[in-house]
């Protein structure tokens, strides 16, 4: 006769042996759905980045003006003028005061000193690149990405500075509205 304890131990040993003999199952994950999602995202991102020749990345807190205009943004160099600062080539060059005026230390008449230096450098680089490639002369197109509340005086100062740095064509970046 076997006692209940012996029976329990025997069963336990049998189960242990069965577990040892059992071949480990490999977890299989179905990645078809995941691939579908990734494909959609990749196509969407490619489409949205390939449409515009210039990628506009507004700075934090910047509200771009709204307009009925439907002309696409063509090639050009963007300058971002938020209510706090002027950014060019990913560098915050000039700060604006609470009233939206350019810091007086950076201003000489209508000319914004640090912005002029950066724009002139960019213009020289672009001209040299065009010359090296043997392409037609550089057209000097500037895309002004402003703020809805940007004061006209500041806008004029930026345009004047860009003009001095040999930018001859200007476009205001706007968000297209339906109406």
């Amino acid at each position, binding site marked *: 006769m076997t006692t209940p304890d012996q029976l329990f131990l025997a069963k336990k040993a049998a189960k242990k042996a069965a577990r040892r003999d059992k071949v480990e199952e490999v977890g299989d994950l*179905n990645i078809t*759905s995941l691939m579908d*999602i990734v494909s*959609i995202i990749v196509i969407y991102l490619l489409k949205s980045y390939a449409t515009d020749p210039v990628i506009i990345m507004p700075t934090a807190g910047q509200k771009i003006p709204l307009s009925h*205009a439907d*002309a696409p943004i063509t090639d050009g160099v963007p300058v971002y003028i938020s209510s706090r600062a002027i950014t060019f080539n990913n560098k915050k060059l000039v700060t604006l005061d609470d009233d939206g005026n350019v810091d007086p230390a950076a201003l000489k008449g209508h000319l914004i000193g640090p912005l002029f230096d950066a724009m002139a450098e960019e213009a020289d680089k672009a001209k040299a690149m065009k010359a090296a490639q043997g392409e037609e002369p550089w057209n000097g197109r500037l895309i002004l990405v402003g703020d809805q509340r940007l*004061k*006209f005086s500041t*806008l004029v100062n930026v345009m004047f500075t860009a003009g001095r740095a040999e930018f001859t064509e*200007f476009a205001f970046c706007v968000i297209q509205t339906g109406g």
Partner: protein
Amino acid sequence: MARKKRKGAEEGEVEANLLPVMNIMFLLIPALLLAMEVARFAAVNVNPPKFAASADQKKEKDDKKKPLNLKVFILEDGYRISAQDQQEGADAGKSADSSKPTIPLAKPGAAMDDFDRYDYVALEAKAKQYKSLFAHETVVTISAENTIPMQALIQTMDALRGSKCRLAKAMKGEKVPEDCLFWQSVVEAGAG
């Protein structure tokens, strides 16, 4: 103790079925992408002011009739409009009268950041009136007081261009639509 272990071992064998989760994700992501509001950027082309006309331009001017030379000055209290160097609404014998705007505000007393304070409808009507008299003219010079916000400038340009004007095809070489009024803007300081 032994019972707990057995129970745990049995539960550990259950494998999560990820397929329904994946299916939901598959539906959710396109739905979110579609629901997402995408800002569509556009460009408003502006010309910098030309300070002097070339010799050819001067000769051409002499040959033709007097040009329209439409100028719109955005004041804090409305629009001052002048054409052929004569401000509309100016006192008799004066070319300009800075005391009052040609088109007053649509919302008098509204704050400067209320961009609908200007009467864009009246401005567009005035632009149509000038366009009917000078059909070949497309250029308007716009200036503003220092405090005028950019949104007001853009909406003024929209009104002068015409609310039905669509220039996307014209940018690709097609003819500019007849709905377009004064679609070439020159922005300058102190043009009033």
